[in-house]
């Protein structure tokens, strides 16, 4: 958890996108750890595979393909700090207020064979969602590749 916070801190402070990306990876992995703590192992695995493995690399690629191609600094300025700080602080305070006003007492932990369960519910309870996400993936895939092709065409 602390590790994640460190990562977040780096992202917030850093001006260098690459650094931020690595810090994000750090954060993501530590969040995966939190998932494990929350007994969501599958989620943790997905997190590490897709997020840490996928997103961060994509981002780094992105950085490479844009800023780096120009041979410029990968530094990004920041702005509006105060307003942004106020806004994010306000949000945070609101959430804290909300959470502290809520009781969490009548729940109990269910610890069973998660992966099985999830697999089954993908095909039963959430079959529509499962199909849908497949389609979403298709759309995103087609879209991204199409856009990329568009970019390379011109």
């Amino acid at each position, binding site marked *: 958890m602390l590790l*994640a*916070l460190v990562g977040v801190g780096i*992202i917030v402070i850093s001006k260098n*996108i690459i650094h*931020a990306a690595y810090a*994000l990876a750090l954060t993501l992995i530590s*969040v995966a750890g*939190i998932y494990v*703590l*929350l*007994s*969501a192992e*599958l*989620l943790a695995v*997905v*997190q590490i595979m*897709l*997020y840490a493995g*996928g*997103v961060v690399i*994509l*981002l780094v*690629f992105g*950085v490479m*393909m844009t*800023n780096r191609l120009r041979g410029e600094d990968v530094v*990004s*300025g*920041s702005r*509006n700090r105060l307003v*942004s700080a106020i*806004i*994010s602080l306000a*949000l*945070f305070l609101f*959430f*804290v207020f909300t*959470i502290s006003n809520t009781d*969490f007492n009548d*729940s109990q*932990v*269910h*610890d069973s064979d*998660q992966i099985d369960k999830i697999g089954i*519910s993908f095909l039963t*309870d*959430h079959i529509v*969602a499962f199909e849908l*996400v497949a389609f*979403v*993936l298709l759309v*995103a*895939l087609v879209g*991204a590749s*199409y*856009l*990329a092709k*568009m*970019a390379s065409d*011109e």
Partner: protein
Amino acid sequence: MSNAMIPYYLYFASLLFSAGVFVVLTKRSAIFILIGIELMLNAANIVLATFSQYDPSLNGQILAIFAVVITVCEVSIALAILLNIYRKTKVSNVDELTEVGNG
């Protein structure tokens, strides 16, 4: 693992979310903004995962997994668009993109 821990996870998620908001609002680079959004989504996933452990059907976790997938798609589309923009204008900072509209 006890109920008492729940608020702390949630506080953490809120913090993460707020940090994401801050990043989104402050950083100029589109990629940085994406990173911020990732943070926000992660925060949401943590919330889902936190609650999911008390749910026998694990819906929260499932939603979180889908969210992760979706996020990846989002990022890939965003990068593709960014690439196009970059090809055209050699710019990747959003505040330099001011061509649309007249106010």
